């Protein structure tokens, strides 16, 4: 949709422009590699990528690895989210707890988790567990800070009103604090899901025998640029599908908001 008043380009036209540019890019890429301007060994080429992906789909190879990655992502995401909500709730409810652990949380969050991945693999092995831990370590902080802020920023009038209407602490959490925090959690949901996938892939990339990270890492070790790029494309497609799904989910859960963004 055109946002500025002067811009009157229609949606269809924008879509046409996107497709046109993409097609031009692919044609240029293909031509450049065929004419010998660039070496396909380093940059691969569109037709080779298409062939690679088609082959992966035909043999079912890619689905097995995609399933592994998604499984790690989903398990880690759910556990990380749950943990983030619970700890965020505890911290928001008990001021002292927050004051004691605040520096620790900030320090832990500042630590680059990607660098920790080899340690996680050392501790939890090459399998599912190390990746799930990796994902949790990324997702937890996003959700934790959202929940904490969401509860701290809850409308004072609403809390007072609930108290006057007779809310006990558990009512307050269930009917006021959590719904209020949920809007914050949802607003960071797409970030945290993105982090989850990155966590799983990086974990696999550094030490695993299956999953999309492993597929890319394996192709790299074979100096197979086509395999690396094809793996990235598949991941990209997965992220786009997930993102569309999340947008729908967000719209469903924000039904009470005046304008869904």
């Amino acid at each position, binding site marked *: 949709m055109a946002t500025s008043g002067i811009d009157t380009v229609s949606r269809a036209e924008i879509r046409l422009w996107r497709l046109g540019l993409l097609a031009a890019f692919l044609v240029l890429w293909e031509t450049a590699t065929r004419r010998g301007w660039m070496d396909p060994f380093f940059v691969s080429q569109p037709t080779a990528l298409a062939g690679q992906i088609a082959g992966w789909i035909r043999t079912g190879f890619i689905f097995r690895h995609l399933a592994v990655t998604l499984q790690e992502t989903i398990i880690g995401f759910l556990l990380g989210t749950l943990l983030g909500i619970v700890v965020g709730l505890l911290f928001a409810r008990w001021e002292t707890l927050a004051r004691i652990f605040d520096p620790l949380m900030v320090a832990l969050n500042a630590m680059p988790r990607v660098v920790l991945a080899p340690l996680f693999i050392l501790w939890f092995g090459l399998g599912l567990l190390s990746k799930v831990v990796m994902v949790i370590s990324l997702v937890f902080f996003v959700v934790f800070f959202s929940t904490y802020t969401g509860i701290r920023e809850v409308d004072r009038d609403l809390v*007072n009103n609930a108290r006057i209407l*007779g809310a006990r602490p558990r009512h307050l959490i269930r009917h006021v604090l959590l719904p209020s925090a949920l809007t914050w959690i949802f607003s960071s949901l797409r970030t945290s899901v993105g982090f989850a996938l990155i966590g799983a892939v990086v974990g696999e990339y550094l030490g695993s025998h299956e999953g999309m990270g492993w597929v890319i890492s394996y192709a790299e070790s074979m100096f197979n640029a086509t395999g690396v790029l094809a793996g990235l494309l598949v991941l990209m497609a997965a992220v786009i599908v997930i993102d569309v799904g999340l947008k729908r989910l967000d719209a469903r859960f924000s039904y*009470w*908001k005046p304008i869904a963004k």
Partner: protein
Amino acid sequence: MTRRFALPREAREFTAIEDVSFEISGGEFVSIVGPSGCGKSTLLGLIAGLAPVTAGRITLDGRGVDGVHPRLGFVFQRDALFPWKTVAQNVGLPLLFRGVDAGTARARVADWIARIGLTGFERYHPHQLSGGMRKRVALAMTLVHEPEIVLMDEPFGALDVQTRNLMENDLLDIWAQFRRTVVFVTHDLEEAIALSDRIVVMTAAPGRVKAVYRITLPRPRSVTEIRFHPDFGRLYETIWKDLKDEVRLGYERNRHGLAG
């Protein structure tokens, strides 16, 4: 009673209200008027048990207030509706909190929604309603568990004049039926006279009781018509004389940043 707030950054205390003392009988409609910043809202918060008094005490039915009284209702200046709940869920909330069984609760919620004229809007969310409708829901939510005492903090301040008059009349009708004690905070003297049995005039900060007036205008009243009653103008003039100086004082202080 007195209520002081610590102002840690300025290393001093701010006295919101000081030596305020008055009594309210059961079933009485009392308004508290005063300039902005005189601690009217603070006073209501203290009566509601939302905040502790610094000195003195408040009693409801002879018992000291410590915490929120279960038979008390509060209508906030802003709607304070729960935006993620429907009209029916909002109205039913106090019953849910009090563990009233679902069947009884449903009947009472339906009854109150009908009484505020919002039948058919049960499944709407607050953002889909107009300001007046939201205020009605807030009123129903407060009254559904039939509190003995209803505190109202400038409840109609944000409404346009027409809606406001309608709401005031509705409030009087409901009050006439139930005869609960109402403590109504407003800065609008006309509104206070039209609604109340008694008016407490507060001074500029720190808020003290300046005067108390009994309003003997006949009931039942209509807020739009009672203004033409011969006594209305006389009462207005008398009370306004008291209020005027305080309003000016409050304004001056606000301008100089002395009062919060």
